[in-house]
């Protein structure tokens, strides 16, 4: 993501349009130029690199684009390290302690550095040069760190990252996000909800599987007044959302008018046709080997029931439950299937409490016989679901018997 000062957007009436670079020859050439600049700076200091980037900016007016691209390369593909034969903090302590005994001047600086170099040569029993002491003194400053590794991306990678970052930047000012998740396969909702949880966001979910869901995202304190406190977390959610097949969103933005010093409310919309490219990994398609083997076996089976993966969100107060599979019959019947494998007691308690609260009447729970539910404090008598027990592997036939 980009810092605020490198964000650019224009406004068309109420609509905010973040700057996006076309993936064309001109921009690819620009990205290539920057990549080459980094490549050439391998083994050199960050200070040297920064000066070369500044030269590249020249006095042209597109410096913010160049700076933004360079920022993305620097923060995602580069490693800078302290390179010095002597520990900088140790050098500083020795040099400054010795220097404090005489009046500071350029002449006494030479004398002090020579003395420290001599002392170190004796102690370490190898020759330490005055220049090594002088250069090592601040080798750990950011500008003196050495570019030791550059994992060169392609020009297209960088342009994609830049465009995504510009769009994410719009959300820094978001107080709320309303997401319409349409029904689709495969949904990858799990990834989205994992990130919701990770970023401490709240989601209020309405809707059903056939019409899609409306997910309102904000934070606990948003109830009392609109706050952009969760904006950054919302921005980080966007790359996860890009993995979901079909969606549209509308964000409420709070912007401060610098002239009147008042807050204004704006809106920003985006949908799955936006053409942005996510750099988050897709997440594992299956949560466990158990699920993977079950899905494989189902495909080999001859039945009218089709197996959909992670398609339904079961809204429950303050959260959502995403069953592992949905079984759909051409005649319109459908069931949800949740496989309960090997888990800690707390997880099980939560899971069964979720099931109870969901009020869902077409749920199948496949439970491993190895689980000691009684010990975990889980009672099955008031669970509104059909239950299939299994030992090591869950067989599709066992599931079919409870629904047919």
């Amino acid at each position: 993501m980009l810092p605020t000062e490198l964000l650019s957007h224009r406004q068309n009436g109420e609509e905010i349009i973040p700057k996006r670079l076309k993936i064309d020859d001109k921009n690819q050439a620009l990205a290539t130029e920057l990549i080459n600049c980094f490549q050439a700076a391998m083994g050199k200091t960050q200070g040297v690199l920064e000066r070369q980037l500044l030269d590249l900016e020249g006095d042209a007016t597109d410096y913010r684009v160049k700076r933004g691209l360079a920022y993305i390369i620097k923060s995602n593909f580069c490693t800078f390290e302290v390179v010095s034969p002597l520990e900088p903090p140790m050098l500083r302590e020795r040099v400054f302690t010795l220097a404090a005994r005489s009046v500071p001047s350029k002449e006494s600086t030479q004398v002090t550095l020579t003395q420290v170099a001599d002392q170190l040569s004796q102690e370490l029993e190898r020759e330490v040069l005055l220049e090594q002491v002088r250069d090592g003194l601040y080798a750990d400053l950011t500008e003196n760190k050495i570019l030791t590794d550059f994992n060169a991306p392609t020009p297209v990678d960088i342009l994609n990252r830049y465009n995504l970052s510009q769009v994410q930047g719009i959300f820094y000012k978001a107080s709320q996000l309303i997401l319409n998740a349409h029904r689709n396969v495969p949904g990858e909702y799990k990834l989205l909800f994992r990130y919701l949880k990770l970023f401490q966001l709240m989601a209020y979910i309405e809707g059903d599987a056939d019409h899609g869901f409306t997910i309102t995202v904000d934070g606990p304190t948003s109830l009392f007044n609109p706050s952009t406190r969760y904006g950054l977390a919302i921005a980080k959610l966007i790359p996860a959302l890009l993995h979901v097949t079909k969606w549209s969103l509308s964000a409420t933005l709070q912007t401060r008018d610098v002239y009147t010093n008042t807050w204004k409310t704006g809106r920003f919309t985006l949908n799955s046709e936006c053409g942005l490219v996510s750099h988050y990994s897709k997440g594992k398609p299956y949560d466990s080997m158990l699920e993977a083997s079950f899905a494989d076996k189902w495909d080999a089976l001859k039945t009218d029931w089709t197996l959909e993966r992670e398609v339904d969100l079961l809204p429950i107060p303050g959260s959502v439950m995403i069953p592992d599979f949905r079984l759909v019959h051409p005649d319109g019947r459908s069931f949800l299937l949740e496989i309960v494998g090997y888990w800690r007691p707390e997880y099980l308690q939560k899971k069964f409490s979720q099931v109870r609260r969901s009020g869902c009447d077409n749920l199948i729970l496949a439970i491993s016989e190895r689980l000691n539910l009684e010990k975990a404090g889980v009672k099955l008598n008031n669970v509104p679901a059909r239950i299939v027990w299994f030992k090591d592997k869950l067989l599709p036939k066992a599931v079919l018997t409870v629904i047919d």
Partner: protein
Amino acid sequence: MARTPTLTFDRGTLILHPPPRGKAWMDYATWDDRVEKFRIPAIRYRSLVEALQAEDVYFIDEAKEFYPVDLVPSLEMEPYPHQSEALAAWKLAGRQGVVVLPTAAGKTYLAQMAMQSTPRTTLIVVPTLDLMHQWYAHLEAAFPDAEVGLLGGGSRDRTAILVATYDSAAIHAETLGNLYALIIFDECHHLPTDFGRVIAEYAIAPYRLGLSATPERTDGKHADLNILIGPEVYRKRAEDLAGKALAEHEIIQIKVKLSQLERERYNELIQTRNDFLRQSKISLGSIQGWQMFVQMSARSQAGRRAMLAHREAKEIALGTDGKLRILADLLAEHFPARILIFTADNATVYSISQQLLIPAITHQTPVKERHEILTKFREGEYNTLVASHVLNEGVDVPAASVAIILSGTGSTREYIQRLGRVLRKGNIENKQAILYEVVAEDTSEERTSARRRGEKRAGGAGEAEGAGGAGDAGEAGEAGGERKKPGNLQVVYGRGKGRSDKAAEQLEINYSTQNKKSQIKNSDVTDRVTESSPKRRRNHPKETED
């Protein structure tokens, strides 16, 4: 059977469920559809609990995770009268409120007294890493048996007593909110920003103490301190404490001429900039003008060139070689007195540090190392320190007797805070502190300094600001002649001692002129800023200095 109402903490808010009987709690609660429960802002915890208790409503409090701690002090001193009075006033106000005391009036010890009298888990928030370490060192010494930890600068402790920076505390506000019974906000004027205020808002802490020498903010948000911490419960000005805790000081301004080459380049650059500004009809005298200049520099090549010229000119004015020569000269003159050098930018800090082998402190200095450097400076192993903005606020270096400001920034608060560093009396009797301000002659920087000191023009000696009435203009003429420096230095000193004191006086033009005497000696400028009109400062934004 109805379940018992339970109060829980959720990321900066409280949830009260199931709803209790009575109705006092309804004033605080809002129905939250998202969880189908009542939610309450964390900051209202104390009022809510008091309201429930008043109605004798039974509820379970699962929100609070703060607890009593044993705070046996090993460090006890006879408090100054103002410290005892401030503590009493704060307790009387229900342990919620702001205490305003000038720099060096012993706010840390007051805080320690507040902690002893409220022995519960405590969070202390401070603006800088240096202050964080200073507090840490003090609390470790004061309460050797207590668990003291740090949040910020790489540390992430969760201890009964926690010292945190405003930034880190704001980032972790959602999880810190219910762990501390007492929150102490050091330099509490930092709290009412959009980013920082959540530390107070997301916390249930029933006890809150704000400390500041200058709570007033130019944006007027200090009014929010009433809600976030509590009302102002005690205030003392520097004059009230003068001679007891503060040292006398003297301010000397030194003007440095640019070298022939620098001067030519400077004029050329300013010409480039000004030509563009004139053509574009931009005046840099206002915030809008500066914003326009920034916008134009992103749109046209000529604008971009003008901006680059502006920057380079500023760099020349800030970093002229002449300043380094003056610096070496001043260091030689005062050797081995303890000297602090301030510059506006890190590049100059490191250039001085490397050329003259003086220990440096900037935001890049590792936390542990800056602690060591400050300790060695205090103990006398180092006698000089060069720093950028990091030492501006509240860092306790009483050993320093000389401060040299190499380049100004036009920020009044900063200027005063810097002064405060050398104004500390420490253990030295009759300490006379000296503050040098080294500015490049006839550059825009000089005008900033003049403006800061309340003059209309650099050359306008003793020219009193009309409206506010800085007073004392009559004494300007009596100032002694220029102090000559030996050697080949191109130095033009300020207008001597008497005049220099006035320079500090003129910081606050609205200050009452009735008490002329006390303004000249023992003057604590830090307190003055509280008297000055925010409007005036807004007339002199620092936009041209960026």
